């Protein structure tokens, strides 16, 4: 334990720039803001690493806002995989997903000193990520336009082209990836947040900044669009 405490000493309090700790962060998100501990002070530098990882988002953010930049690393550790996977669900490119997730955390790092806890940290984080993905999609469309590639009739033509080139025995992952390409925004984000990320309707409404009713209809329409998109693929796979 002593050596862990020593590691923690080195990390919390100074700008952590380390390779240590590739352990998977806890899967459950710390959504509860532990107000009780608010007044206990946020200097965690004497805590062992395992204990620091148990702190709530609220405690870590407070600590960061009080000048303990090392706390940021634990927030990153907690959510990096989720954010990276969100981008992976949308773009299906591991390196690209990692790169985008990094950009999200850079944005978070800049904005965190002014974070007011008006929403929970992770819905705020997801909001930044979803906005980032939309920007990227827009950028990609523009790029396609400016590169004077032959413009097709959107995703359907792309899907047809892929159908012709891909082998017939597709797995579920591939079918979903192809299908999602055909689902337009904002329905795609709603479906991904609900069915892949497993978030609640209320959380999605908070992330997408819209009414609960809108979320309900976006999820339903997104699912219907996806269902229609994958239907021919599933039938073909069955053949």
């Amino acid at each position, binding site marked *: 334990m002593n050596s862990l405490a020593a590691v923690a000493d080195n990390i919390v309090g100074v700008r952590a720039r*380390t390779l240590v*700790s590739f352990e998977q962060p806890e899967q459950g998100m710390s959504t509860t803001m532990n107000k009780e501990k608010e007044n206990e002070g946020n200097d965690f530098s004497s805590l062992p690493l395992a204990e620091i990882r148990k702190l709530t988002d609220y405690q870590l953010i407070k600590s960061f806002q009080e000048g303990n930049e090392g706390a940021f690393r634990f927030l990153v550790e907690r959510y*990096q*995989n989720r954010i990276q996977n969100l981008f992976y669900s949308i773009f299906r490119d591991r390196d690209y997903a990692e790169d985008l997730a990094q950009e999200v955390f850079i944005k978070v790092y800049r904005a965190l000193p002014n974070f007011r806890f008006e929403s929970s940290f992770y819905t705020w984080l997801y909001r930044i990520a979803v906005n980032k993905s939309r920007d990227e999609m827009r950028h990609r469309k523009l790029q396609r336009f400016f590169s004077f590639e032959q413009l097709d009739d959107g995703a359907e033509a792309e899907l047809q082209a892929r159908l012709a080139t891909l082998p017939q025995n597709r797995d*579920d992952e591939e079918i979903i990836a192809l299908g999602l390409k055909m689902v337009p925004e904002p329905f795609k984000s709603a479906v991904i947040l609900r069915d*892949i990320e497993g978030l609640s309707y209320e959380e999605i409404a908070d992330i997408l900044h819209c009414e609960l009713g809108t979320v309900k209809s976006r999820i339903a329409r997104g699912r*219907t669009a996806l*269902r229609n998109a994958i*239907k021919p693929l599933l039938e073909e796979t069955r053949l």
Partner: protein
Amino acid sequence: MKKLVKNAISEKLSLYIDGQLTEDETKEVESLLQSDPLLQEEFKELLRLKQMLSSQPRLEPSVAFWAKLSQRLENEHRQQRRSFPSLFGSFHPALVVTAMGCMVVLGIVLYSVYFDKTTTKEQVSASRQKNLLPLFTSISKDEALRFSFLGLLPIDQKNQTTIEVDEPTQKCCRIKVSKSSQQKAVQLTMDRFVAEIKPTPEQKQVIDSLLQIAQQRICTSLFVGEDKALAIDPSLPQFNRMVVSGITSTLHPEQRTKMERLLASFQTPTYVRDEASKGVASSDAGLKQFPKVTHNRTFVVITPDTILYSDMQVDMDSLLDLWQERITDMEIERQQLIEQFIQQDFSTLRRRNVAQVSSGLGSTNEFQIEVSPEIQAPATATKKLGLTILPSDSPSQGSR
């Protein structure tokens, strides 16, 4: 109108699946489902879709995420410090705007003048993103020979901590780090090898070129990182096997016997015993089977927290350029990293990992891990690492 109704029903069905309807609405949907086979089909398809979505494969946590991110943040900090010195605050805003305008113009000019150079620098920084430095930037022929035959390399200059690789079973890599010097191994030198085996000038040439490849490979296969991290390419024993096989294939039978005798006096790893006794027919077979050293390889990364594997891109050329440029800084940094790694308590590493396998603990001065065949296959990035962590005093599975 019909479409509107259909959309409303689809939405209800979607909410029904998620349990988001009121009691009355639920009953309504259930009765509709009973009476409408088309809706039943839609319901089944939506359920299947939901199941497919929720079982989508997830990426493993990216190993060097934090290392890369912190590097980017630090670069940004540095750039900000450079672009906005604090004394700007005390000037009139108009002055600041003018100054910034000038800086933009200057920036564009500088950018166009130094464009090429900047690109190189960026590549270099990309290769350093993981905060890893190569354990060796140059290595002597003797050391390359010892590594190829004995799988041994000294980590520190005093030769007090050594790293040892072996292949106890086929396609299984054993990596052992121990704080004990291998004085005997030092006796195996190129001079001694030449004196005992007496290779012809042609044979010597082949052996030299094989060792040259080994020298390059060693430099790109071992890295030391911040916070006591060590990254090793687990295909090193396989590589060594190829070197040994290449050298053996150039020798005549009587020379091979001499070589076996020489190596028998050292504790040679399994692959050497296998390869040295094998008679290889074609003399240039050894050279032909050498795969090219690719930039993107899988490494085993050992830190005090965990042991796992990571795909790493090694841009050795850029790194070496940077090394030449800042040789003193880099040497000092590397020495510090090595010191940190060596001085850590290996027993902590052993204790945490070994607990799952065995409670037997021996010397606290070494630790040993074995990498199973799974990793040796051209694994996809998300494939799990098959690692077996053994207490180094436990009976080995190999023929040693």
